[in-house]
């Protein structure tokens, strides 16, 4: 299970690599022209995605038929007007189209100047073009991108961690339900001690797995940085990468961990509420649903983090793990608010663990056909 994500990533990278290599030739186009100068001029400016070996229409048609070529462009400069004809199985993409149009425009202009026999001064005068500039504050732009990226990375991470480990915790507890080994254990230690021990054990497993993923991620990052293209990309977006990492490895990480703790406790409670060990798979449902609710309520608020509901939910245990990190990323939660929310979350975890610990023995020793909600009600009554 621990190696699963690594194997999945390795498989995806491998398949992408093979797919990219096998399909790259079929995405290329050929440039064909009777004018060697015109063709050479085009290839000097744009050589990416061009199959330079094909120089005739016949060869191009043959290559297209064999699915080795996406299309071919013929350039004709025999008259006073340049002609460009593209033949392909699909339309030219916008980037390629703009590239060809730009080239034809430049070349046509050069040809026009030659035909009109203009003086250099006249040529310069005609070459004047209007100027449109955009003035964007680089800091603000990057900052917004950092927030958006951090938001998505964080809530997706919280959601996946909670969904995965809630199920594991619930099933782990539910599998003990009604077994006689629980009677032996409860004749040896208190249910509260056992419950807290069990939760601590599950959490340590979770933390170990997360540490393995972080180490694996770091190793993957180091290997990826050996690739010049990726290194260039990362260096070009240094402030973005640093900003996202900063937003993940601060108080937000504590919220992720405490979120895992409170959801694990709830998952354990759900596990103890099922009718019998065989129903373990149903045990995680309430926790998964609550976690999904947190995730899907958070989504619409990504651009409206000042909403009252976001502020309220950033203090409500189970939801604060989603909403307070969102506010922290956005910079709309002061330190006092962050500490207040943390205190509420910690108190809720403590009280919740104590409350469930006291009912744990009764729940774990029950074996009847009551459903999860009937057990919930029954656990509050004296048996």
């Amino acid at each position: 299970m621990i190696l699963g994500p690594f194997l999945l990533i390795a498989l995806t990278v491998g398949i992408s690599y093979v797919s990219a290599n096998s399909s790259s030739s079929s995405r290329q186009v050929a440039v064909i022209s009777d004018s060697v100068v015109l063709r050479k001029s085009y290839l000097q400016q744009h050589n990416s995605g061009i199959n330079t070996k094909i120089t005739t229409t016949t060869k191009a048609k043959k290559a297209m038929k064999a699915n080795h070529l996406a299309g071919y462009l013929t350039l004709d400069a025999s008259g006073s007007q340049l002609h460009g004809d593209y033949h392909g199985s699909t339309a030219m993409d916008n980037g390629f189209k703009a590239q060809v149009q730009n080239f034809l425009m430049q070349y046509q202009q050069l040809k026009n100047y030659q035909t009109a026999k203009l003086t250099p001064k006249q040529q310069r005068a005609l070459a004047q073009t209007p100027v449109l500039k955009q003035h964007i504050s680089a800091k603000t732009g990057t900052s917004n991108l950092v927030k958006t990226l951090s938001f998505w990375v964080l809530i997706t991470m919280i959601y996946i961690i909670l969904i995965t480990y809630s199920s594991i915790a619930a099933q782990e507890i539910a599998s003990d339900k009604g077994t006689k080994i629980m009677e032996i254990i409860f004749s040896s230690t208190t249910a509260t001690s056992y419950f807290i021990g069990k939760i601590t054990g599950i959490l340590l497993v979770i933390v170990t797995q997360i540490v393995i993923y972080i180490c694996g991620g770091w190793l993957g990052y180091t290997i990826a940085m050996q690739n010049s293209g990726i290194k260039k990309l990362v260096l070009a977006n240094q402030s973005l990468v640093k900003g996202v990492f900063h937003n993940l490895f601060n108080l937000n990480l504590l919220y992720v961990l405490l979120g895992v703790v409170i959801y694990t406790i709830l998952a354990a409670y759900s596990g103890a509420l099922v009718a019998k060990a065989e129903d373990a798979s149903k045990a995680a449902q309430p926790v998964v649903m609550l976690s999904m609710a947190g995730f899907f309520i958070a989504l619409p608020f990504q651009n409206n983090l000042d909403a009252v509901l976001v502020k309220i939910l950033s203090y409500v245990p189970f939801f604060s793990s989603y909403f307070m990190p969102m506010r922290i990323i956005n910079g709309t939660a002061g330190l006092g608010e962050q500490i207040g929310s943390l205190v509420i979350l910690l108190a809720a975890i403590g009280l919740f663990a104590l409350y469930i610990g006291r009912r744990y023995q009764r729940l774990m020793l029950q074996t009847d056909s009551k459903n999860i909600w009937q057990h919930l009600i029954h656990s509050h009554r004296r048996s």
Partner: protein
Amino acid sequence: MLSIQHISKEFGSVKALNDVSFDVPNGQIMGLIGQNGAGKSTTFHSILNFIDYGGSIQWQGHTLSASDFDHIGYLPEERSLMTKLTIEQQIIYLARLKGQPAKVIRPQIDDWLERFAVKGTRKSKINDLSKGNQQKVQLICTLIHQPDLLILDEPFSGLDPVNADLLKQAVLAARDRGAAIIFSSHDMEHVTALCDQLVMLRKGDVVLHGTLDDVRDQFGKTELFVTTDWTAEQLQTLSGVGSVTDRHNRRYVLHLTDANAGPAIFDTLTQGHYIEEFSQQPPTLDEIFRLKVGEDHV
């Protein structure tokens, strides 16, 4: 001493225990008998605080609490172990829950495995053991920390006579070192062989309580074992004989309606001559059990 005083327990409208009281002194074995659903396991669960109950349960003069867990050995009715563990891991895990360090328990394991003739080594997985051997490992887990209070729910079920004898020896050894022991069983032979006292429950009520002899004597010496040339029909005509059971080969049991009829029957059967067998006894525990259960169906 374990002292149970006036405990009651209801599950909805069903009365599982009704004013049950008895004591189990240190160094004594108490047998708890009764039909299925009589309240035996509920009594054990009450002692172990698994359920809430009315009344009082005291251990060594105080209410039994978590601080006493280390001195209790409990064997539940259905066996259950952690099947992925090895024998050693399982024994040490449960012993550590009882406050015993692994370094104290580990050297004792081979001795206990030998004593119970477990087929497997300390490194054998629980899952690979036969049902009987798993049961013996569970018994070792119950006994290895030398508990002062032993609670055994149907400990003999599923054991063959040889292994049942091994368990009897272990229980008697625990009694001899001063442990208070309470166990339930449907096999009256084991109860007769082991118990200093017994309690019979019927639908949550105590219907019998005392030492084995006291309980049997309550019913009078109404069983007469004879070996004679008389036929069953002839024996049936004797005064004070309620019914006759043929034990084959001229051997009979006369079930008397009046225990005082014994001397007259002796005179009639012997006529002053030798008789191979004439023994007047109280009913066996098995017969008393059937009798008490039968009362319920009348």
